[in-house]
């Protein structure tokens, strides 16, 4: 129980820090942070599919559905923001189910390919349906977000909204992951044939994970639409989908916090390169090098960094590489590798 309290305390500190940052940073950092929070929602929601072992490169399609739906409802029909956002997310989920259901039989790279096809298909539909979405001209004039009728005019206000959405999303996703549902998903991800043989309705659970992922992608999309307030179909493309996937892998595939760390790190990285005069021109180059180095030295993701550091520390302090090769002197305590709590 004590460790749980400690965890909550640590999280509260982090949250407070984020709020302070928004308040202090001014418009620009509020803008950046809001986008970081959006990316965290995207990355964390994609994790649901990845837990089930589905290589999903289609997340941006559903972000697009959420974005355009919410934007059009608010702009053309005057629907209030909260409702528009929920409708966008709901439609994203429905489209997700419609596209996901028939795709359940697909495995591995074939499933990945079909998700890529989703992204392109949705992008092209949005582009062709000019009368609704204004196609390649771009959809502008999207109203700012509002809560209970109060418009969130300033960037910091909108950033707080993003923070709130992110916290709520993460809470829900955390609860899901550490519930029985999460356990089933993980078992499917590890050995779905085995799960099937044990009577688990693999298809239904996969679809649920996929659909929920799409819902939150829609949430992220809707926020994005009312925040950036300009929608351009090629924004939601294969590149963005792979980025969301990369957030998960660079952050760490094996842990709930993986996508969050990955999204935060990779969203913020271009800023660092933008900050220095010397690196500004070669932003993309430095970014890709950093990504490459990260994955080379931490293939399990950034989340494994603390583990590796503690291993390094332990090795230094004890000077032995494995218990079996240690010569135990009388009175010396032998270290047990693998902390049950870690």
């Amino acid at each position, binding site marked *: 129980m004590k460790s749980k309290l400690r965890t909550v305390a640590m999280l509260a500190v982090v949250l407070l820090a984020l709020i302070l940052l928004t308040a202090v940073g001014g418009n620009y950092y509020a803008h950046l942070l809001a986008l970081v929070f959006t990316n965290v929602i995207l990355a964390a929601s994609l994790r649901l599919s990845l837990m089930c072992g589905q290589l999903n490169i289609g997340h941006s399609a559903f972000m697009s559905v959420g974005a355009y739906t919410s934007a059009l409802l608010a702009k053309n029909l005057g629907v209030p923001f909260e409702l528009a956002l929920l409708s966008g997310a709901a439609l994203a989920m429905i489209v997700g189910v419609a596209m996901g259901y028939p795709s359940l039989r*697909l*495995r591995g790279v074939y499933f990945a390919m*079909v998700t890529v*096809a989703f992204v*392109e298909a949705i992008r092209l539909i949005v582009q*062709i349906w000019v009368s609704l979405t204004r196609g390649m001209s771009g959809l502008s004039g999207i109203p700012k977000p509002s809560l209970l009728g109060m418009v969130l005019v300033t960037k910091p206000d909108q950033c707080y909204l993003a923070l709130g959405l992110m916290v709520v999303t993460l809470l829900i996703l955390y609860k899901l992951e550490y519930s029985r549902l999460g356990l089933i998903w993980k078992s499917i991800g590890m050995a779905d044939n085995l799960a099937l043989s044990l009577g688990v309705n693999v298809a239904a659970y996969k679809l649920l994970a996929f659909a929920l992922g799409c819902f939150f992608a829609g949430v992220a999309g809707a926020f994005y639409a009312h925040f950036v307030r300009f929608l351009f179909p090629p924004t939601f493309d294969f590149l963005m989908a792979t980025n969301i996937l990369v957030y998960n892998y660079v952050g760490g595939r094996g842990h709930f916090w993986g996508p969050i760390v990955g999204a935060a790190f990779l969203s913020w990285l271009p800023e660092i390169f933008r900050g220095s005069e010397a690196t500004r021109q070669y932003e993309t180059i430095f970014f*890709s090098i950093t990504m490459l180095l990260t994955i080379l030295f931490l293939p399990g993701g950034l989340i494994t960094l603390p583990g590796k550091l503690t291993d390094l520390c332990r090795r230094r302090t004890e000077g032995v590489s494995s218990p079996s090769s240690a010569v135990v002197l009388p009175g010396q305590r032998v270290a047990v590798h693998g902390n049950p709590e870690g």
Partner: protein
Amino acid sequence: MTFALLIQSMVIGLSLGSTYILMALGLTLMFGMMHIINFAHGAVYMLGAFVIYYVFAQWGAAYWIAFFLAMLLLGAFGFVIERCIYRPIKGGVEPTLVALIALTTFLQAMGYPVFGTLDKHVPTVFHGMYSILGVGISAERLMIIPVAGVLVLGLYLFINKTKMGAAMRAIEQDKEAAALQGVNVHVVNALAFGVGFALAAASGALMAPIFKLDPMMGEQPLLKAFIIIILGGLGSIPGAILGGLILGQIDSIVATVMGLEPAFLLSFVFIILLLLFKPTGLFGHEV
């Protein structure tokens, strides 16, 4: 749409299809043998074309020498990537994916300062125009068919008739069993990378005089190659050929009738439908 136009459209479709098949070759090997989605395929294609630019167009060497040099250099690059990126990651599918994406981004971004910002061109190697069923097709486009044919044949013989190819097929079926049989997995992996990269470079080198050169030129070929590989089925060369021909026809006929956007939409809808009914593509098998 008149009948004459339809025929002409089909001829164009064949021309398109042959370019797609060429683009897909390097990807088939890596995809089929190592189950790696080589995201760097487009970047290597681009580098192959630029080797032609520098060695053939700028330096003045003979075209075929530049062509083989491109394959050699980028094959070697493939070995390097296997050793320095694939092996250290211990072959995890996803980290490799990310690494290849990072590599592609890096190579493409480097292209602008290194190669310059203006689009480049390479002089035509095979001159002449032929009229096929009323459509003007240039000699250099027709040349794709024999060259692609040679490469496909070479690939087929390599995979099915050589010891190395057998080793690759063994590893693809069961890595541990193959290793137990004495197959040096590392060497075979390196070879797969090398050959895969070399083939990507070859297609870039052949396409260079036909189209234009710029650092992002590999993007489209990458996408088309993926589509064909999936259409045709994992690791199947006949599947890739058929997939390429089908995609070429769709891209041509539908585009001529309805315009490009509907054509692309249709091709993606086609893929989705195909995969739903035949989950492993036309000739593929379960992974």
